């Protein structure tokens, strides 16, 4: 048998076909470069830190970040806990997914809620998205970082998300009061990261800085990373608020007299507090279908985020105050 026909025969063998397909999926050097760069950043951050933490928001970017953290320290487990800022208004599915996933991986999870804000009755519906985000997310995050004395916090933000994010360093320095000064960022040439800080100061580290939304989805597909099902289209009860499709996740969302949620096939491009996160109508039920839709989409990912729209430069201001 000549080499060529042996090759053909081999292909008909199902395991070989599987391997061949896998290697096609893995031939993406672009994703490999991004992965290697992110792992390098994660290791640098942890090596330069006394007490690191990974900010886990349960979304797709956090899921990719967590996956990369598992890779960075393999065969050891990641040497840091996960921190989730729970506003108590997350989708129920997100919380369930979070608990299952951290349990599966055997990782320590710190879920922090701003008790004081809760006691004051701050919520996204009557307090407004701005106050809610400030008290229940920004202040809550600062409380948690102070309480546990974390000096380096890894987060899944990407530069392609938003204009002020596009300006942020990979190692983003924060003052002792958690403030970000966009006009005085530390120079960060090559891939040499300055992780030095004085007592009380901290650094937010963004290993996914150079990833795009599409890269994230392709990587999720390639690596088969588990995701919360809200990212995939399914019939869900929705109402319209300020032009956004809001999924009625529980009975805390007030409905107008006589208003009935309609069932629509929707999914989310980004996840947050359910009353503040707009869904998109879609039939994409698999990662491959999502990638197709993302390629064809005429709208950016953050459009569904009600909080971004709170005035011009709102993201920058939130970040200066210590928001992730």
């Amino acid at each position, binding site marked *: 048998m000549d080499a060529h026909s042996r090759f053909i025969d081999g292909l008909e063998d199902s395991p070989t076909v599987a391997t061949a397909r896998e290697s096609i999926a893995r031939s993406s050097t672009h994703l490999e470069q991004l992965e290697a760069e992110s792992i390098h950043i994660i290791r640098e951050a942890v090596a330069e830190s006394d007490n690191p933490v990974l900010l886990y928001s349960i979304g797709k970017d956090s899921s990719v970040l967590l996956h990369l953290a598992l890779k960075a320290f393999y065969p050891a487990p990641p040497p840091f806990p996960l921190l989730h800022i729970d506003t108590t208004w997350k989708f129920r599915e997100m919380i369930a997914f979070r608990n299952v996933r951290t349990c599966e991986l055997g990782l320590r999870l710190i879920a922090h809620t701003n008790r004081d804000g809760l006691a004051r009755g701050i919520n996204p519906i009557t307090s407004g998205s701005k106050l809610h985000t400030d008290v229940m997310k920004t202040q809550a995050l600062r409380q948690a970082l102070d309480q546990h004395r974390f000096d380096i916090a890894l987060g899944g933000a990407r530069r392609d998300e938003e*204009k002020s994010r596009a300006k942020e360093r990979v190692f983003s320095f924060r003052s002792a009061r958690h403030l970000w000064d966009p006009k005085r960022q530390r120079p960060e040439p090559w891939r*040499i990261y300055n992780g030095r800080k004085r007592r009380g100061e901290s650094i937010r580290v963004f290993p996914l800085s150079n990833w795009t939304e599409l890269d994230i989805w392709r990587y999720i597909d390639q690596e088969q990373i588990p995701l919360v099902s809200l990212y995939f289209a399914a019939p869900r009860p929705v109402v319209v608020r300020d032009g956004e499709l809001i999924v009625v996740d529980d009975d805390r969302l007030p409905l107008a007299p006589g208003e009935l949620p309609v069932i629509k096939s929707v999914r989310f491009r980004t996840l947050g507090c359910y009353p503040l996160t707009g869904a998109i109508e879609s039939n994409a039920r698999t990662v491959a279908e999502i990638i197709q839709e993302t390629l064809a989409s005429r709208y950016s990912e953050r459009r569904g985020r009600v909080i971004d729209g709170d005035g011009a430069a709102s993201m920058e201001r939130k970040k200066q105050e210590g928001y992730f």
Partner: protein
Amino acid sequence: MNVRSQPSAALTGAALITAQQEKPLLRFVACGSVDHGKSTLIGCLLYDSKQLFDDQIDALAVDSRKFGTQGEKLDFSLLLDGLAAEREQNITIDVAYRFFATAQRKFIVIDAPGHEEYTANMATGASVADLGLVLVAADGGLTRQLKRHLVILSLLGIRSVVLAVNKMDRVGWSAETYRTIEAEFREFATALGIDAIVCIPIAANSGDNVVGRSQSMPWYNGPTLLEYLEQAEPTRGSRPGPFRMSIQWVNRPSPDFRGYSGLITSGKVQVGMPVKIYPSGRSSRVARIVTFDGDLVDAAAGRSVTLTLADPVDASRGDLVAGIEQAPEIADEILTRVFWMSDAPLRPGQNYLLKLATSTATASVEPNLSVIDLDTRQLAEAASMARNEIGTCTFKLDRPIAVDRYADCKDTGSFILIDPETFDTVGMGCVERTCAPRPRWWRWSWPASWRLKRKNPDAAKPTRRSETHFRSLAKAMSWRATGSLDTFVVTFVITGSTKLAGSVAVTEIMTKVLIYYCHERIWAWVPWGKARPTHSPGLQQSLGH
């Protein structure tokens, strides 16, 4: 609820996606003087190549009316200038990183600020670029700040640039003006070692020759900017290089596993390959290349891996794993090119933390500082290096570390300088060579313009190394003699007794400094014992060129 994604069969079928994944990535940095139109150009590039989402275009229209400088038209710079302060002042403050892809290629565009105040941010962006997109406004010409940017590109080893002569509408689309600027630019850039230069006349706010061809400049028949970028092949970093991996992290999950984690920054590693750990120089062999996705037989530059070694050698974070051929230099004194970014100037005798790859050492600045003059492109000796200046500097380290020349291995030849008190990043630099005599130095070469110029070749200013041992010995002895004499005289003049020896000692320290200075000045007149400039390459060579 725990949804696993479907296998990628559907995905591999999508020709579009496969095609997109095969594009080679190009990182380019837009630089040039303030207000010459960099952000406008990048915005135009994104807009005209249909990279924007509808909601972003809507937001741009709103922003343009509010902050724009273009009346009713879109102000593309607002797509990039995302900070509130930038929009208010209509300037760029910090670099923006944008990602886009055309049918041909993926790009990372780095929009740098032109203002001198923010040159450090420009250098941050440029350090990761393969190619420089340099803008010169046709009605502005070559400015000092543009020259500074070019010197920084040269320092970083970027040898390919595309010159976009912008605002051609302001000069009546004049071919003559364009050619004058082009000639002046080529002359300046070529002398800096930037040898691959392409020039394109454009107008960024109307999009002429950006994506679409200009109707107003029929005399230009080269490629449009996007056409050029899509096929550009920057000359940089294509050589395979020797194996290098700086240890980031020692992975010890259990007593029987000890792995060294890092990013391979150069060359290739294989299981069984002999390696050395630097700076200790201990030898071993690669036992396993461990990754989350299984062990590898070999791995090349650009991969993050964990190596285990066949022998129980001692290695830790900051050490370098390298192949046995083309070994790195082990040095505690390095000659470097530096870009200084702090308000407090770089001065001899000062100490900084020098972070090179994953190792950090304390570095003190040696006296032989020189700074480049932007107009003449010549290095001249200097007492200090001010903010935004570029020059050469020798650092003495508190311990030997493994380094490469920047030209050979970028990652093990570049470093940042950290202020030991504020922990700010105050400088960045590239290793030119180490300061121990080794024959391979003769390969050392600056672009001609980086060389230190001397007025009279026979009257070379003596450097530290131009003094012979006898001379130093003679100086040491004469100093001892005068110093002791001084002590004696001072003691005698004050008390004549030994009781106040303590106060005398303190006084002596102060007077000694003054006397030593006078002493040195006197010695400077004495030609006896001085070495002739040697022919050993290095800074001396450039001194005597």
